[in-house]
């Protein structure tokens, strides 16, 4: 793995050593390559051995050899350096360009020469928040967040109510129209009514959307200002009013618990945990968990009240800017938006509470969309530069893919994923939106499937960005359908288990062996029996560590 040293720098010189043995005049001549790669001692030892040098000249030989090597090495250095200097003076190399390259090298890599950083508000806020949430003020913060959350949910329920009313009214209207169809109204009229309804609905929805957006905007600003102020005041020790304020708020906001959230916990009761050790000699401990539940349950913000919800929320808030983040893999289609399916559901959930730290999901997706376009442009320019790479066979049919890209560069491909960050989800900070195609519904995907390779890249990001808990949909689907039979499930689970195990073994070389938690999520709709079959499969694939016996036998 040695850096290839160019041929020009290598030269061969003969080392000549003369000595007398009795009356014989001996000459030792050895060709040496410069720069000398070997240790002088080894070289010397080899000479003695190879040429059967008498021991009485050993010391002379050694001095003369090391002098020779030193001299020649220095000459070699001189030669190379002067080559460079001469080519500069001949004008072969442009001085201006050279000095610019140097200046750039310093400027981009050293703090001393780099351009000063513009202060980033986000990071300052991150520091402030991280400090506050780890102080007694954390309770106040959470309560404040919760009260904002209640405001939002009030608004949302109002919206839902109004939408529902509208829909009911429209349905009634449509009914009457339908009854009179053919009599008073023609098909044309029906269509007109339908489109009119649709428009009305759109108008209403967008009205509420703006309102919601406005409210979250206000909330976010208020919240951030308040946090900064609180921090400033806490810094100032003789300001006691703020402490009282914290107390007052605490008492105000610890209102009576509401009991609406109990059923959530009941649904998630099916879960099983395992502790495993991975690695041949050095073993790393990891925690695995198999959970049956809906993927959005991990995201949904719940009302404080029932025991644990607030603690869970606190836990998520505490670790937001820490080095133990929680991630979630969401399987999406190839378009970067939130209009349909699980994407829409997720967007709804993420809207239920204001994100006080990161941009709204829509804004994040807009940025992702731009990055996708930029990445495609980069890719194609690279391909144009190196057309030969195209000929290399890529797994999964590169040509097909390229065609798709040509068709719509804004879409992403299976196996690629985009990342969004959230502070307002209940147990998750980072969401990996992994693109999968209909292939995952079929029974015959392999370990080389883009979705699986995507999982590997996700785990790699987990290593580089301190995501210590990651939730993966075990069957690579969020909902069950008819073609997903029991053998299908078992086969899929085995594949994902085995691949993830392989990636986790690899992980030790990425991050030096850090203990992680991997949650495998299976859809709510699978049977209990199926769940236990899967939980039996897990310890067969991963080596579950032996239980610690506390009682000694002897």
């Amino acid at each position: 793995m040695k850096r290839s040293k160019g041929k020009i720098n290598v030269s061969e010189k003969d080392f000549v050593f003369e000595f007398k043995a009795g009356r014989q005049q001996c000459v030792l001549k050895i060709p040496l390559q410069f720069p000398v790669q070997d240790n002088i001692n080894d070289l010397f030892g080899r000479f003695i051995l190879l040429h059967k040098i008498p021991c009485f000249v050993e010391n002379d030989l050694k001095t003369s050899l090391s002098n020779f090597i030193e001299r020649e090495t220095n000459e070699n250095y001189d030669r190379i350096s002067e080559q460079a200097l001469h080519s500069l003076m001949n004008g072969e190399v442009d001085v201006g360009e050279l000095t610019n390259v140097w200046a750039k090298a310093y400027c981009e890599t050293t703090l001393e020469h780099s351009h000063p950083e513009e202060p980033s508000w986000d990071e300052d806020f991150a520091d402030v928040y991280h400090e506050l949430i780890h102080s007694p003020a954390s309770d106040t913060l959470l309560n404040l967040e919760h009260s904002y959350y209640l405001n939002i949910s009030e608004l949302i329920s109002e919206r839902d109510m109004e939408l529902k009313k509208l829909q009911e009214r429209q349905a009634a209207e449509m009914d009457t129209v339908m009854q009179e169809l053919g009599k008073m109204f023609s098909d044309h009229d029906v269509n007109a009514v339908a489109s009119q309804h649709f428009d009305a609905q759109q108008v209403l929805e967008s009205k509420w959307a703006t309102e919601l957006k406005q409210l979250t905007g206000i909330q976010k600003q208020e919240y951030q200002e308040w946090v900064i102020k609180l921090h400033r005041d806490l810094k100032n020790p003789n300001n006691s009013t703020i402490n009282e304020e914290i107390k007052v708020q605490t008492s105000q906001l610890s209102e009576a618990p509401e009991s609406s959230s109990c059923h959530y916990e009941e649904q998630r009761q099916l879960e099983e945990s395992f502790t495993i050790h991975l690695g041949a000699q050095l073993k790393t401990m990891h925690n695995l968990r198999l959970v049956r539940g809906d993927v959005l349950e991990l995201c949904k913000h719940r009302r404080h009240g029932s025991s644990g919800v607030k603690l869970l929320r606190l836990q998520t808030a505490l670790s937001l800017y820490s080095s133990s983040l929680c991630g979630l893999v969401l399987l999406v289609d190839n378009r970067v938006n939130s209009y349909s399916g699980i994407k829409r559901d997720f967007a709804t959930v993420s809207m239920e509470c204001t994100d006080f730290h990161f941009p709204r999901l829509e804004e994040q997706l807009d940025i992702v969309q731009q990055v996708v376009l930029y990445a495609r442009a980069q890719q194609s320019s690279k391909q144009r530069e190196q057309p030969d790479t195209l000929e290399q066979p890529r797994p999964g049919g590169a040509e097909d893919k390229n065609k798709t890209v040509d068709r719509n560069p804004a879409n992403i491909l299976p196996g690629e994923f985009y990342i969004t960050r959230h502070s307002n989800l209940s147990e998750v900070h980072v969401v990996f939106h992994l693109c999968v195609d209909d292939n995952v519904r079929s029974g015959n995907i392999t370990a080389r499937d883009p979705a699986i390779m995507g999982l590997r890249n996700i785990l790699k990001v987990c290593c580089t960005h301190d995501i210590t808990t990651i939730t993966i949909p075990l069957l690579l689907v969020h909902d069950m359908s008819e073609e997903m039979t029991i053998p299908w499930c078992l086969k899929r689970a085995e594949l994902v288990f085995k691949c993830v195990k392989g990636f986790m073994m690899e992980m030790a070389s990425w991050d030096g062996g850090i203990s992680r938690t991997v949650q495998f999520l299976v859809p709510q709709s699978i049977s209990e029996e199926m769940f236990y079959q899967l939980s039996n499969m897990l310890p067969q694939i991963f080596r579950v560590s032996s239980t610690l016996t506390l009682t000694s036998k002897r």
Partner: protein
Amino acid sequence: MKPLRDALLGAFTFFASPLPHDVCGSNGLPLTPNSIKILGRFQVLKTICHPRLCQYVDISRGKHERLVVVAEHYENNLMNFHKLCKPVSPDRALQIAYEILEGLEFMNNHGMVHRALCPQNVLLDCEGNVKLAKFGFYHMTDGGADVDFPIGYASYLAPEVIAQGPVHSSGSFQSKTPCLSGPKTDVWSLGILLFELCVGRRLWHNIENSECFKFILNLGCMDDIVTVLAEEHGCLEVIKELPENLLTLLRKCLMFFPSKRPTPVQLLGEPVFGHISGLTEHFHQPISLFSSGLRSAHLQLPDDITSLCKDEGKDYLSERAIDEVYYLWCLAGGDLEKELINKDIIRSKPSICTLSKLILDDGQSFGQGRDRSFLLDDSTVTLSLCQLKNRLKDVAGEAYYPLLEDEQSNLPQSNSSSELSSTVSLPLIIRERDTEYQLMRIVLFDRLLKAYPYKKNHIWKEARVDIPPLFRGLVWAALLGVEGDIQAKYNGIDKDTPIPTDRQIEVDIPRCHQYDELLSSPQGHVKFRRVLKAWVVSHPDLVYWQGLDSLCAPFLYLNFNNEALAYACMSAFIPKYLYNFFLKDNSHVIQEYLTVFSQMIAFHDPELSNHLNEIGFIPDLYAIPWFLTMFTHVFPLHKIFHLWDTLLLGNSSFPFCIGVAILQQLRDRLLANGFNECILLFSDLPEIDIERCVRESINLFCWTPKSATYRQHAQSPKTTGDGSSNSSSSFDRTNIYLYSDYQDFPKTDLSREPLRLSELKAELSPRISAEDLIDLCELRGSSHFKTPNKRAKVGKPKILAVDIRSPEDFNRGHISGSINIPYTPSFGADGEPVVFPAVTTLSAYRGRLIVVLSNMVKNAVMFATQLVKMNYPRVCVLDGGINKMKVTGLLTVPSPQI
């Protein structure tokens, strides 16, 4: 390493270049991260000790390719002169120049160049002597190839360095191969440095870097660079007033073309330094522990010996070596990253803020902003020793200078030492993290090792307590009896000429303990290859078997900077524990070994043995890698260390006990499972509690009669004149008995006789020799046998001799204390031996060491087998039967009343 004295510990940090996503090397394996490459190349710097160079102490890897380097440090540096803004006197300047050159020369002799010379890196100790810092930066980063930033400081770069272009550059400079710099580049930097000192101002101080480079490159067209520089910076008058010799020196340093510029060695010989070099003492490298030279040959006592004793109230800690102090600093809760974060050198953003937006299927990421926290800030932070000093404030001064001569010291023990003796009983893991305790052990072992081999026995004695991790490499070498000029021997072995084994070695090394940073570094691979080749070449009768690489790993890890010692330890270890295991045809050795091992399982754990035999799970299926690599293939390095700390104290039969101890930890699972599950279990061995394993194997070892593990293919008795027998005069005799091999004793008629392999395999229980029986039953008075009384009292196993001859024979003469259970083999209808009722009488003695005596060995073996089948532990058979005892005259006839 040299003592800390008034030096400080400093740390600085930088990032290695990250690797591109998922790129593989030419061998198909993932590339080594650059930080690991640097870590490997760094190691040699620890061995570079010179009074003009700051001693490197340690390097550690953090997250995301961060490296933190710890080195000797001083707060003062040449920048102090610049803060005064006035020229330094010519004499002082010459003195500084000379000292810098001394440092540079020493480095050059070790094949290194500084390349980052600048006022900040020329430190000054309390006496104003020069100490060069960061001198290994260029070396450890492989000429800057493993880091993103350029090495060196803009205004001090030599013109040829600039002309060659930065190592990482794009565009037209990319095609050129990076060129390494020679020693003369430092001479240019020294010239600039001196110039600045002489004129009292900095060159190109407030100028853009690119302008500065342009200026330097244009100097090539000038005749008198010194004058041009002086004119440019408006200090021509100052320069003109300088003494002529200093000006000549400056001119020589600031030669534009390297061929005209002298090297540091040449400069040191210049007449300008004539009077300085006469005054300074020349540095001699201290003689290493293993060399042909006399270590104390140059020892000189001061004329007035009392001057040595008057350091009252001195800081004893600072007299310890730098690496020891750093080691203790870490134990006392030192945290490098925290120190650097406190000083705002490490400014990491929360990870959630640095996530990228999009990852493509090939792992390329997009939308990640440039993170400023990855930029180089190489300022050095002083590590505060307060916490350590506070921790050690109660340690008495005497503790730093223990007396070695009278071993049974009757001196009143101070409080701290009595506390320490209670520490000894704590688990090893805790002891290894106890600052005071480690200080004591380090001080003690340091002294003992300095007196090696004279203090060899004392080292053995202390090693039985524990071995301080810091000195493990040397202590192991001492335990293995490594002596003499190992370096010369190692140099004499041809490690370069290709041999047929090369390919296999090349394949094995990248798969051997690669989780470890040192062993996975390219430097580690090179050293691995050299040590392995040296061993293969120097042992023509033995061959390379896969597993030798694992065996080499612990020695290489512990002696990373001393290949010769690693080689010597390995060469001493293999004949002791793995005699002839590496023969080209080693099957007879291994087969015998495994058979004895299965006998040991039956001896210690008959229930498990019965189960394993029943399902056919024989040691051949799992234990070969255990013994062939002495467990190094099975365990991670940190566990191997603790295991071998004890293994090295035991004899060649100790590994059997370790094997049994491992099986016992898995006992429940093995008993509960069939063949397939057992195979699966061992293919990925579960975590083994190594401390328990060591404890149990010592216990098993004590229960095992010496001759039970007799192997005819073991190493033959050592010839007299060998180290161990030489030293036996001073060696207390218990040690010989406990820790030397059975084979080491002179062979007598009463010893065991070799058995054919097929015979050995047929026997379930081990045989023991008549000698052992006599010893265990204490048949002879302690007076004329070599077993000392002391040993007899401590934990000798309780023994029961079972005589299975007929009562008549028994009455004619038997061993005192033996019981008679007449036995003639009888078989039931199904061909199985019939269980006879008399055996039940034995149940009262279950747990004792049962020796079966007979005049027909075959009967005794069958009897023993039955006992094992009935789960009687510790059953063995007297080799040669009762007839062997007859000749000793130790048989007694019962008194008539019975």
